[in-house]
């Protein structure tokens, strides 16, 4: 990537963050009632002293532009505000929840991408056969399933009926006394259902895309060339089709990261996963706006980061981008 390209990329990110922060600002101002009361809402009783403190902190007595500037300044210094409900800086709250969310979304992302590519390729190669039909149908259904409901049904099946996997949580409560290996294993066990829930829906999406893409690629001339070379079908699939066909899937997956993080909010709620999504749920039910706004910003940044990552993958896979 050229220096100019990097530069314009960075500029893009900065602009995006700026816009999101502005949305945040506007939203707080859009909330009905006194913004100070809204921000301070968690204190239970509306205490005048407290309100004054909030007003001063947010500069609510200043003109809008000055307020916006001050707010952006805070964002720039990573000051995401203070949760009066939890009596802690939002930054800390988010920091301690970031790990589980990353674990969940990344594993779901991998599951969905790998599964989508594999199943989609399978269906694409078997185009028109029974296995294609089965995969396509399943994908269609999964794609139309409400994530949280799917999660609940998995819990019903795997935790309540079969008792194979834990239904909720991140680790067993007794895990503190486990060894590191047992601990990891326990987290893994807890991770199964949420990651599967979140991953499956997107897997369905990617599988559909991959299938179409494989069918399209299969008709490409270079596949004919590969056949004319005498390669086996397996070698053609591996060496020529997969990579080309997964390009649109990767692009799309990059676009879906935002949606996936949104999905994580719901999945974490269903599975009591102690991540950002769970924090959002708690913040929503108690309308803890500083936390909500901070989370919104952080999640957007997360999306940008993952977008960069997919971009990188894309560049690795597609030499045409790398050179340009």
């Amino acid at each position: 990537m050229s220096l100019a390209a990097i530069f314009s990329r960075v500029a893009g990110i900065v602009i995006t963050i700026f816009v999101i922060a502005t949305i945040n600002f506007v939203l707080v101002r859009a909330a009905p009632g006194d913004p100070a009361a809204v921000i301070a809402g968690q204190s239970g009783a509306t205490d005048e002293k407290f309100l004054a403190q909030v007003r001063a902190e947010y500069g609510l007595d200043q003109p809008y532009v000055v307020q916006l500037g001050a707010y952006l300044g805070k964002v720039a210094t990573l000051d995401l505000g203070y949760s009066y409900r939890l009596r802690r800086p939002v930054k800390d709250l988010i920091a301690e929840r970031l790990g589980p969310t990353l674990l969940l979304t990344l594993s779901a992302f991998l599951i969905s991408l790998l599964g989508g590519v594999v199943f989609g390729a399978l269906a694409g190669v078997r185009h028109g056969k029974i296995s294609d039909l089965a995969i396509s149908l399943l994908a269609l259904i999964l794609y139309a399933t409400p994530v949280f409901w799917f999660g609940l049904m998995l819990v019903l099946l795997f935790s309540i009926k079969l008792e194979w996997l834990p239904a909720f949580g991140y680790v067993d409560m007794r895990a503190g006394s486990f060894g590191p290996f047992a601990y990891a294993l326990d987290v893994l066990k807890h991770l199964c259902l949420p990651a599967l829930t979140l991953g499956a829906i997107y897997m369905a999406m990617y599988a559909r895309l991959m299938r179409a893409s494989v069918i399209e690629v299969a008709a490409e001339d270079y596949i004919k060339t590969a056949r004319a070379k005498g390669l086996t079908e397996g070698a053609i699939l591996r060496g020529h089709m997969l990579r080309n066909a997964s390009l649109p899937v990767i692009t799309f997956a990059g676009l879906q990261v935002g949606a996936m993080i949104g999905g994580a909010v719901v999945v974490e709620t269903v599975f009591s996963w102690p991540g950002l999504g769970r924090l959002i749920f708690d913040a929503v039910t108690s309308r803890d706006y500083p936390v909500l706004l901070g989370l919104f910003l952080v999640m957007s940044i997360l999306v940008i980061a993952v977008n960069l990552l997919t971009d990188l993958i894309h560049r690795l896979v597609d030499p045409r981008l790398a050179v340009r």
Partner: protein
Amino acid sequence: QGAAGGLTAIINPEPPVLVLPINQQIPTGTIGGKIYESLLSYDFELKPQPQLAESWEISEDGLTYTFHLAKKAKWHDGKPFTSADVVFSCNVMLKEVHPRARGVFDRCESITAPDDHTVVFKLKAPFGPFLLAFETSSAPMAPKHIYEGTDYRKNPANDTPIGTGPFKLKEWSRGSHIHLVANEDYYLEGQPVLTEIFYKVVPDGASRSVAMETGEAQLSQFADIEPFDVPRLAAMPNLKMTTKGYEFFSPVLWYELNLRKKPFDDLRFRKAARLLLDPKFIVDKINFGLGKPATGPIASTTKFYDPNVTIYKTDVAAANALLDEMGLKKDANGVRTTIKFLVVPFGEFWTRLAEYFRQAMKQGGIEVVLETTDPGGFAQRVSNWEFDTTSNMLYQNGDPALGVARSYISSNIRKGVMFTNTEGYSNKEVDELFDRAAVLTSDKERAELYSKVQKILVDDLPVLWMTEQQFPTIHDARLENAIDTAIGVNGTFGRARWAS
């Protein structure tokens, strides 16, 4: 396993801090109650028992209370606990940071320490329930050597709470668990028995039940277990359920109508609304059998309860007749009037309560539109009287003077303050009865006055009392002596032990 050993309990939500003197939310009380103590504890009948005070006496005129402190009591950092700490706590710190304590200790003329182990409270006027003010959450003792002269709320020591209780904070892993360990230097002989307590943060209701079911956790309290799960868990052989240990709180639940507005100012309307409602429904279908219908403002679990008041039976026809009499006619859709209901934004229970209210009122042709807000907006609207109807639940804190009168006396109509007389009820006679009952010291005399006030209130229906809420404490069947005071799970757990 012997009597000692560790206990794993559930905590939800995670408390913001553990320093009980500066925060009295429920989870803070539960965990803080192991770390901090006050002068007294109370048995199930709310009779005072020794805690940091070994003994006490009250003067004839009911104006002077003298407490003799436990001599061996020490703070967790090794400093001795003395009467100076009590004076600092009650006279300085709590007055600043604890509104409820301020209300009580402002009644004192002076709080003094004649020697290291004696404290004397001199009241300006007699106050019947004064001895009930020394419950842990109501008047937690704070170490003077740490807090004196600092900004209490921002004191860095708030991360490492220092109390006198039988357990000390070892580790707090935010979002995960709080680890308490036994205080080896505890002043009461043979306490604590347990070696450690883990409080696990489990924000999800379903996971909490699972944790109890599997034995991952051995104790849950308050609203930890969703009501519908309680009967199931209670029936499990390895678990026990009790509703004891909440006597001090004895919360009463009611629907609140804004009496400043029409048609709520009309007693006939309130009566009709009351007749449309069925407390049994709330007990059975929203609470899954926990709690019992309330007959009036004072809970039956507290001292001055009088059952001989007007009893309202659910009667839709009578309600409609009353409404007809008021001249509220049904329109083509069978709607007499449309009112709003401000849904309490604290979870499913409150939502269900709102939904029930809507359906119940419908039978009388009263259409209810639910409004939702956030907790901030809720507090703001209720305390500023910007609502039609809502629901509310208040702790009685052991005595009508502490926890009941505040909702009905006209001197407590204070705009902008939550948990006051927000419905706007005003009745001179009631005011007077409550005032007089508070300053009497004889229980018998007080009971008489409270009986009178109960009768008046129940006939006047300032709010529509529904139920006396009960909380289930579910614990491992082998856990003993954990619930031994009127504050149950908020107690010290000094005597809690495993059955061998």
